[in-house]
Protein backbone atom coordinates (compact mmCIF):
# COMPACT_ATOMS: atom_id res chain seq x y z
CA UNK A 1 0.00 0.00 0.00
CA UNK A 2 1.94 2.89 -1.29
CA UNK A 3 -0.32 5.78 -0.42
CA UNK A 4 -3.41 4.89 1.51
CA UNK A 5 -4.16 8.38 2.59
CA UNK A 6 -5.58 10.79 0.11
CA UNK A 7 -4.81 14.30 1.23
CA UNK A 8 -7.95 16.22 2.05
CA UNK A 9 -8.39 19.03 -0.33
CA UNK A 10 -10.10 22.23 0.44
CA UNK A 11 -13.45 22.81 -1.21
CA UNK A 12 -12.95 26.53 -1.53
CA UNK A 13 -12.39 27.66 -5.05
CA UNK A 14 -10.28 30.62 -5.90
CA UNK A 15 -12.74 33.29 -6.86
CA UNK A 16 -10.24 35.76 -8.29
CA UNK A 17 -10.62 34.59 -11.85
CA UNK A 18 -14.39 34.61 -11.72
CA UNK A 19 -14.33 38.03 -10.17
CA UNK A 20 -12.12 39.24 -12.99
CA UNK A 21 -14.52 37.88 -15.58
CA UNK A 22 -17.51 39.43 -13.84
CA UNK A 23 -15.99 42.87 -13.76
CA UNK A 24 -14.64 42.57 -17.27
CA UNK A 25 -18.15 41.83 -18.51
CA UNK A 26 -19.51 44.60 -16.36
CA UNK A 27 -17.17 47.17 -17.82
CA UNK A 28 -17.91 45.86 -21.30
CA UNK A 29 -21.63 46.33 -20.83
CA UNK A 30 -21.26 49.74 -19.28
CA UNK A 31 -19.09 50.96 -22.11
CA UNK A 32 -20.97 49.46 -25.03
CA UNK A 33 -24.54 50.27 -24.09
CA UNK A 34 -26.35 53.49 -23.68
CA UNK A 35 -28.88 53.82 -20.92
CA UNK A 36 -32.45 53.86 -22.12
CA UNK A 37 -33.18 57.46 -22.96
CA UNK A 38 -35.62 58.74 -20.43
CA UNK A 39 -38.53 59.64 -22.57
CA UNK A 40 -41.17 61.89 -21.16
CA UNK A 41 -43.54 60.54 -23.78
CA UNK A 42 -43.67 56.74 -23.67
CA UNK A 43 -44.17 55.31 -27.13
CA UNK A 44 -44.32 51.71 -28.33
CA UNK A 45 -42.98 51.72 -31.83
CA UNK A 46 -43.99 49.11 -34.38
CA UNK A 47 -41.36 46.82 -35.85
CA UNK A 48 -40.06 46.66 -39.38
CA UNK A 49 -37.38 44.85 -41.35
CA UNK A 50 -35.60 48.14 -42.06
CA UNK A 51 -31.91 47.74 -41.28
CA UNK A 52 -30.94 51.40 -41.39
CA UNK A 53 -30.04 52.85 -38.03
CA UNK A 54 -32.02 55.86 -36.94
CA UNK A 55 -29.98 59.04 -37.42
CA UNK A 56 -28.81 60.97 -34.39
CA UNK A 57 -27.66 64.22 -35.93
CA UNK A 58 -29.79 67.06 -37.30
CA UNK A 59 -32.71 65.30 -35.78
CA UNK A 60 -36.24 66.63 -35.71
CA UNK A 61 -38.50 64.12 -34.09
CA UNK A 62 -42.25 64.18 -34.23
CA UNK A 63 -43.78 61.84 -31.69
CA UNK A 64 -47.32 60.62 -31.94
CA UNK A 65 -48.40 58.98 -28.74
CA UNK A 66 -51.18 56.48 -28.16
CA UNK A 67 -53.80 59.17 -27.62
CA UNK A 68 -52.92 60.80 -30.91
CA UNK A 69 -51.10 63.72 -29.28
CA UNK A 70 -48.18 65.11 -31.25
CA UNK A 71 -44.94 66.28 -29.67
CA UNK A 72 -41.87 67.81 -31.21
CA UNK A 73 -38.32 67.26 -30.04
CA UNK A 74 -34.80 67.44 -31.39
CA UNK A 75 -31.64 65.46 -30.84
CA UNK A 76 -29.61 65.71 -27.66
CA UNK A 77 -26.46 67.06 -29.30
CA UNK A 78 -25.28 70.60 -28.68
CA UNK A 79 -25.95 71.67 -32.25
CA UNK A 80 -29.40 70.14 -32.24
CA UNK A 81 -30.23 72.05 -29.09
CA UNK A 82 -29.11 75.28 -30.73
CA UNK A 83 -31.28 74.47 -33.71
CA UNK A 84 -34.17 73.83 -31.38
CA UNK A 85 -33.74 77.32 -29.99
CA UNK A 86 -33.62 78.71 -33.53
CA UNK A 87 -36.81 76.82 -34.41
CA UNK A 88 -38.62 78.21 -31.38
CA UNK A 89 -37.39 81.71 -32.19
CA UNK A 90 -38.57 81.33 -35.79
CA UNK A 91 -42.05 80.28 -34.68
CA UNK A 92 -42.03 83.10 -32.15
CA UNK A 93 -41.36 85.70 -34.86
CA UNK A 94 -43.65 84.11 -37.44
CA UNK A 95 -46.63 83.99 -35.15
CA UNK A 96 -45.87 86.97 -32.89
CA UNK A 97 -46.07 84.88 -29.76
CA UNK A 98 -44.17 87.41 -27.67
CA UNK A 99 -41.97 84.87 -25.91
CA UNK A 100 -39.15 86.40 -23.91
CA UNK A 101 -35.58 85.11 -24.38
CA UNK A 102 -35.82 83.51 -20.94
CA UNK A 103 -38.95 81.64 -21.95
CA UNK A 104 -37.37 80.47 -25.18
CA UNK A 105 -34.38 79.24 -23.22
CA UNK A 106 -36.67 77.41 -20.81
CA UNK A 107 -38.46 75.74 -23.72
CA UNK A 108 -35.13 74.77 -25.25
CA UNK A 109 -34.12 72.96 -22.09
CA UNK A 110 -37.37 71.05 -21.89
CA UNK A 111 -37.45 67.57 -23.39
CA UNK A 112 -40.23 68.28 -25.89
CA UNK A 113 -42.58 70.86 -27.24
CA UNK A 114 -46.12 69.78 -26.67
CA UNK A 115 -48.63 72.55 -26.45
CA UNK A 116 -50.61 74.83 -28.69
CA UNK A 117 -48.78 77.98 -29.75
CA UNK A 118 -50.67 80.35 -27.39
CA UNK A 119 -49.93 77.96 -24.51
CA UNK A 120 -46.16 77.92 -25.01
CA UNK A 121 -45.72 80.65 -22.41
CA UNK A 122 -47.32 78.32 -19.88
CA UNK A 123 -45.25 75.38 -20.95
CA UNK A 124 -42.11 77.47 -20.47
CA UNK A 125 -43.00 77.87 -16.79
CA UNK A 126 -43.40 74.15 -16.17
CA UNK A 127 -40.71 71.97 -14.67
CA UNK A 128 -39.56 68.81 -16.40
CA UNK A 129 -41.44 66.74 -13.82
CA UNK A 130 -44.68 68.41 -14.71
CA UNK A 131 -44.14 67.77 -18.39
CA UNK A 132 -45.73 64.45 -19.18
CA UNK A 133 -47.78 63.10 -22.03
CA UNK A 134 -50.83 63.29 -19.77
CA UNK A 135 -50.41 66.86 -18.61
CA UNK A 136 -49.74 68.24 -22.07
CA UNK A 137 -52.27 68.51 -24.83
CA UNK A 138 -49.78 68.07 -27.61
CA UNK A 139 -49.34 70.21 -30.67
CA UNK A 140 -52.79 70.60 -32.23
CA UNK A 141 -52.94 68.56 -35.40
CA UNK A 142 -56.43 67.11 -35.34
CA UNK A 143 -58.11 70.07 -36.93
CA UNK A 144 -56.97 70.41 -40.54
CA UNK A 145 -57.63 74.15 -40.50
CA UNK A 146 -55.52 74.69 -37.41
CA UNK A 147 -52.74 72.21 -37.94
CA UNK A 148 -49.93 73.83 -35.97
CA UNK A 149 -47.46 71.20 -37.04
CA UNK A 150 -47.40 73.12 -40.33
CA UNK A 151 -46.02 76.16 -38.48
CA UNK A 152 -43.40 74.11 -36.69
CA UNK A 153 -42.27 72.41 -39.87
CA UNK A 154 -42.11 75.78 -41.58
CA UNK A 155 -39.73 76.95 -38.85
CA UNK A 156 -37.69 73.75 -39.21
CA UNK A 157 -37.32 74.39 -42.93
CA UNK A 158 -36.32 78.01 -42.28
CA UNK A 159 -33.68 77.10 -39.72
CA UNK A 160 -32.15 74.25 -41.69
CA UNK A 161 -32.17 76.03 -45.04
CA UNK A 162 -30.26 78.92 -43.45
CA UNK A 163 -27.72 76.35 -42.27
CA UNK A 164 -27.62 74.76 -45.71
CA UNK A 165 -28.36 71.34 -44.33
CA UNK A 166 -31.26 68.96 -44.47
CA UNK A 167 -33.06 68.02 -41.29
CA UNK A 168 -33.52 64.34 -40.53
CA UNK A 169 -37.21 64.17 -39.90
CA UNK A 170 -38.09 61.23 -37.75
CA UNK A 171 -41.60 60.18 -37.03
CA UNK A 172 -42.10 58.11 -33.92
CA UNK A 173 -45.59 56.82 -33.72
CA UNK A 174 -47.25 54.56 -31.22
CA UNK A 175 -48.67 51.21 -32.31
CA UNK A 176 -52.20 52.13 -31.37
CA UNK A 177 -52.18 55.73 -32.58
CA UNK A 178 -54.99 56.19 -35.06
CA UNK A 179 -54.25 56.91 -38.69
CA UNK A 180 -55.78 60.44 -38.94
CA UNK A 181 -53.08 61.84 -36.66
CA UNK A 182 -50.42 60.31 -38.88
CA UNK A 183 -52.19 61.65 -41.97
CA UNK A 184 -52.29 65.18 -40.58
CA UNK A 185 -48.58 65.06 -39.77
CA UNK A 186 -47.94 63.87 -43.32
CA UNK A 187 -49.94 66.75 -44.73
CA UNK A 188 -48.00 69.19 -42.55
CA UNK A 189 -44.74 67.78 -43.93
CA UNK A 190 -46.07 67.88 -47.48
CA UNK A 191 -47.12 71.49 -47.17
CA UNK A 192 -43.54 72.40 -46.37
CA UNK A 193 -42.07 70.22 -49.12
CA UNK A 194 -40.47 67.91 -46.60
CA UNK A 195 -41.06 64.84 -48.68
CA UNK A 196 -38.44 62.54 -47.24
CA UNK A 197 -38.69 61.34 -43.73
CA UNK A 198 -38.12 58.26 -41.66
CA UNK A 199 -40.18 56.35 -39.21
CA UNK A 200 -38.69 54.94 -36.02
CA UNK A 201 -39.23 51.22 -35.72
CA UNK A 202 -37.90 48.29 -33.79
CA UNK A 203 -35.73 45.94 -35.77
CA UNK A 204 -37.32 42.71 -36.89
CA UNK A 205 -36.00 39.66 -38.68
CA UNK A 206 -36.68 39.33 -42.38
CA UNK A 207 -39.16 36.46 -42.85
CA UNK A 208 -37.39 33.58 -44.56
CA UNK A 209 -38.57 32.77 -48.05
CA UNK A 210 -39.89 36.25 -48.74
CA UNK A 211 -38.64 38.13 -51.83
CA UNK A 212 -36.57 40.44 -49.64
CA UNK A 213 -34.95 37.46 -47.91
CA UNK A 214 -34.12 35.85 -51.25
CA UNK A 215 -32.88 39.17 -52.66
CA UNK A 216 -30.62 39.79 -49.70
CA UNK A 217 -29.18 36.29 -49.98
CA UNK A 218 -28.31 36.41 -53.65
CA UNK A 219 -27.14 39.99 -53.37
CA UNK A 220 -29.66 41.60 -55.71
CA UNK A 221 -30.88 43.76 -52.84
CA UNK A 222 -28.24 45.54 -50.81
CA UNK A 223 -28.83 45.77 -47.07
CA UNK A 224 -28.36 49.54 -47.31
CA UNK A 225 -31.38 49.81 -49.59
CA UNK A 226 -33.68 48.36 -47.04
Amino acid sequence: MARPKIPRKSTTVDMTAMCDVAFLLLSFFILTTKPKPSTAVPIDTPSSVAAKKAPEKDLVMISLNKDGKAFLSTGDGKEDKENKQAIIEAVNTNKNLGLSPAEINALRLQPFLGSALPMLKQQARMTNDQLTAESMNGIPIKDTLNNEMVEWMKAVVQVYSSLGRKPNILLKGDNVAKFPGFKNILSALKKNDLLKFQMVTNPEAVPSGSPLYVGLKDGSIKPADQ
Partner: protein
Amino acid sequence: MAEMDTSSGGGHKKGPGVKKGKKMSTRVDLTPMVDLGFLLITFFIFTTTMSKPTALKLNLPADTKDPNQQNKLNEKSALTVLLGKDNTVYYYEGDLAPNATNFKSTNFKEIRNEIIQKKNATDTTFMVIIKPNDESTYKNVVDLLDEMKITNTGRYALVDITPLEDNLIRLTEGEPALPTPAPAAGKK
Protein backbone atom coordinates in the same frame (compact mmCIF):
# COMPACT_ATOMS: atom_id res chain seq x y z
CA MET B 1 -22.12 36.73 6.57
CA ALA B 2 -21.01 34.11 9.03
CA GLU B 3 -19.91 32.07 6.11
CA MET B 4 -17.45 34.69 5.16
CA ASP B 5 -15.55 34.46 8.44
CA THR B 6 -15.09 30.73 8.33
CA SER B 7 -14.04 30.54 4.75
CA SER B 8 -11.55 33.34 4.85
CA GLY B 9 -8.09 31.96 4.91
CA GLY B 10 -9.50 28.48 4.40
CA GLY B 11 -7.39 27.96 1.34
CA HIS B 12 -4.27 28.45 3.38
CA LYS B 13 -4.80 25.78 5.96
CA LYS B 14 -2.11 23.23 5.79
CA GLY B 15 -3.24 20.80 8.39
CA PRO B 16 -4.30 20.43 11.99
CA GLY B 17 -0.91 21.36 13.22
CA VAL B 18 -0.84 24.82 11.78
CA LYS B 19 -1.93 27.33 14.29
CA LYS B 20 -4.53 29.84 13.35
CA GLY B 21 -3.84 33.51 13.78
CA LYS B 22 -0.07 33.30 13.80
CA LYS B 23 0.29 34.09 10.16
CA MET B 24 -2.73 35.88 8.77
CA SER B 25 -3.59 34.92 5.27
CA THR B 26 -3.61 37.70 2.73
CA ARG B 27 -6.32 35.98 0.74
CA VAL B 28 -9.72 37.55 0.67
CA ASP B 29 -12.85 35.65 -0.16
CA LEU B 30 -13.99 37.09 -3.42
CA THR B 31 -17.39 35.39 -3.56
CA PRO B 32 -19.37 38.46 -2.44
CA MET B 33 -17.49 40.58 -4.92
CA VAL B 34 -18.34 38.17 -7.73
CA ASP B 35 -21.95 38.28 -6.59
CA LEU B 36 -21.90 42.02 -6.73
CA GLY B 37 -20.27 41.98 -10.15
CA PHE B 38 -22.89 39.74 -11.65
CA LEU B 39 -25.67 41.66 -9.97
CA LEU B 40 -24.43 44.83 -11.63
CA ILE B 41 -24.13 43.04 -14.99
CA THR B 42 -27.73 41.91 -14.80
CA PHE B 43 -28.78 45.41 -13.83
CA PHE B 44 -27.02 46.94 -16.81
CA ILE B 45 -28.32 44.34 -19.21
CA PHE B 46 -31.88 45.01 -18.15
CA THR B 47 -31.67 48.76 -18.16
CA THR B 48 -29.95 49.22 -21.49
CA THR B 49 -31.25 48.76 -24.98
CA MET B 50 -29.08 46.51 -27.03
CA SER B 51 -30.88 46.96 -30.30
CA LYS B 52 -30.90 50.50 -31.54
CA PRO B 53 -34.08 51.67 -33.20
CA THR B 54 -34.08 51.44 -36.94
CA ALA B 55 -35.63 53.85 -39.37
CA LEU B 56 -38.04 53.02 -42.14
CA LYS B 57 -37.79 55.51 -44.98
CA LEU B 58 -40.83 56.93 -46.67
CA ASN B 59 -40.79 59.33 -49.56
CA LEU B 60 -43.96 61.24 -50.17
CA PRO B 61 -45.01 62.32 -53.62
CA ALA B 62 -45.19 66.05 -54.12
CA ASP B 63 -48.70 67.39 -54.36
CA THR B 64 -49.24 68.56 -57.87
CA LYS B 65 -52.33 70.01 -59.43
CA ASP B 66 -51.08 69.66 -62.98
CA PRO B 67 -52.50 66.39 -64.35
CA ASN B 68 -49.61 66.07 -66.82
CA GLN B 69 -47.15 65.91 -63.94
CA GLN B 70 -49.07 63.29 -62.05
CA ASN B 71 -48.02 59.71 -62.32
CA LYS B 72 -50.40 57.77 -64.44
CA LEU B 73 -51.52 54.54 -62.94
CA ASN B 74 -52.19 51.48 -64.92
CA GLU B 75 -55.39 50.22 -63.30
CA LYS B 76 -54.85 46.66 -64.42
CA SER B 77 -51.55 46.33 -62.60
CA ALA B 78 -52.59 47.99 -59.36
CA LEU B 79 -53.43 46.30 -56.12
CA THR B 80 -55.36 48.45 -53.70
CA VAL B 81 -55.02 47.53 -50.05
CA LEU B 82 -57.44 49.05 -47.58
CA LEU B 83 -56.90 49.06 -43.85
CA GLY B 84 -59.85 48.89 -41.51
CA LYS B 85 -60.23 48.75 -37.79
CA ASP B 86 -59.01 45.89 -35.56
CA ASN B 87 -56.17 45.01 -37.94
CA THR B 88 -58.44 43.98 -40.79
CA VAL B 89 -57.18 44.27 -44.32
CA TYR B 90 -59.23 44.51 -47.48
CA TYR B 91 -57.95 44.50 -51.00
CA TYR B 92 -59.03 44.52 -54.59
CA GLU B 93 -57.18 44.13 -57.84
CA GLY B 94 -57.38 46.72 -60.56
CA ASP B 95 -60.50 48.84 -60.47
CA LEU B 96 -63.17 48.39 -57.87
CA ALA B 97 -66.05 46.59 -59.57
CA PRO B 98 -69.35 48.52 -59.47
CA ASN B 99 -70.98 45.83 -57.36
CA ALA B 100 -67.80 45.37 -55.34
CA THR B 101 -67.42 41.71 -56.27
CA ASN B 102 -63.64 41.94 -56.29
CA PHE B 103 -63.54 43.50 -52.84
CA LYS B 104 -61.99 40.89 -50.58
CA SER B 105 -61.26 40.73 -46.91
CA THR B 106 -58.07 39.29 -45.45
CA ASN B 107 -55.61 39.78 -42.60
CA PHE B 108 -51.99 40.77 -42.15
CA LYS B 109 -50.75 37.19 -42.38
CA GLU B 110 -52.38 36.49 -45.74
CA ILE B 111 -51.81 39.81 -47.43
CA ARG B 112 -48.15 39.06 -48.14
CA ASN B 113 -49.07 36.08 -50.32
CA GLU B 114 -51.68 38.12 -52.12
CA ILE B 115 -49.15 40.83 -52.90
CA ILE B 116 -46.55 38.31 -54.06
CA GLN B 117 -49.09 36.49 -56.23
CA LYS B 118 -50.29 39.66 -57.86
CA LYS B 119 -46.74 40.90 -58.26
CA ASN B 120 -45.65 37.73 -60.04
CA ALA B 121 -48.73 37.85 -62.27
CA THR B 122 -48.09 41.39 -63.47
CA ASP B 123 -45.21 43.17 -65.16
CA THR B 124 -42.96 45.85 -63.71
CA THR B 125 -45.78 48.38 -63.61
CA PHE B 126 -47.15 46.58 -60.56
CA MET B 127 -48.11 49.06 -57.91
CA VAL B 128 -49.67 48.85 -54.50
CA ILE B 129 -52.00 51.56 -53.30
CA ILE B 130 -52.38 51.76 -49.55
CA LYS B 131 -55.54 53.35 -48.27
CA PRO B 132 -55.92 53.34 -44.51
CA ASN B 133 -59.26 54.41 -43.15
CA ASP B 134 -59.68 56.52 -40.02
CA GLU B 135 -60.10 53.50 -37.76
CA SER B 136 -56.80 51.89 -38.68
CA THR B 137 -53.76 52.44 -36.52
CA TYR B 138 -50.26 53.69 -37.14
CA LYS B 139 -48.98 50.16 -36.63
CA ASN B 140 -51.17 48.88 -39.45
CA VAL B 141 -49.75 51.46 -41.84
CA VAL B 142 -46.16 50.75 -40.83
CA ASP B 143 -46.77 47.01 -41.06
CA LEU B 144 -48.06 47.38 -44.57
CA LEU B 145 -45.17 49.62 -45.58
CA ASP B 146 -42.98 46.91 -44.10
CA GLU B 147 -44.73 44.33 -46.30
CA MET B 148 -43.74 46.48 -49.26
CA LYS B 149 -40.12 46.07 -48.19
CA ILE B 150 -40.52 42.36 -47.55
CA THR B 151 -42.15 41.68 -50.90
CA ASN B 152 -39.63 44.00 -52.56
CA THR B 153 -42.34 46.14 -54.09
CA GLY B 154 -40.74 49.35 -55.25
CA ARG B 155 -43.87 51.17 -56.32
CA TYR B 156 -46.37 51.92 -53.64
CA ALA B 157 -48.31 54.94 -52.52
CA LEU B 158 -50.19 56.05 -49.48
CA VAL B 159 -53.46 57.49 -50.72
CA ASP B 160 -56.52 58.94 -49.01
CA ILE B 161 -59.44 56.57 -48.87
CA THR B 162 -62.51 57.39 -50.94
CA PRO B 163 -65.90 57.61 -49.20
CA LEU B 164 -67.14 54.73 -51.34
CA GLU B 165 -64.36 52.44 -50.11
CA ASP B 166 -64.75 53.66 -46.56
CA ASN B 167 -68.41 52.75 -46.68
CA LEU B 168 -67.65 49.33 -48.10
CA ILE B 169 -65.39 48.68 -45.12
CA ARG B 170 -68.01 49.97 -42.74
CA LEU B 171 -70.66 47.73 -44.28
CA THR B 172 -68.37 44.72 -44.04
CA GLU B 173 -67.71 45.52 -40.40
CA GLY B 174 -71.45 45.82 -39.82
CA GLU B 175 -71.52 49.53 -39.15
CA PRO B 176 -73.92 52.03 -40.59
CA ALA B 177 -72.57 53.67 -43.70
CA LEU B 178 -71.62 57.29 -43.58
CA PRO B 179 -73.63 59.65 -45.70
CA THR B 180 -71.55 59.57 -48.82
CA PRO B 181 -70.86 63.24 -49.63
CA ALA B 182 -70.21 64.41 -46.08
CA PRO B 183 -66.89 62.70 -45.27
CA ALA B 184 -65.51 63.60 -48.68
CA ALA B 185 -66.06 67.29 -48.02
CA GLY B 186 -64.85 67.23 -44.45
CA LYS B 187 -61.76 65.12 -44.66
CA LYS B 188 -60.11 66.31 -47.81
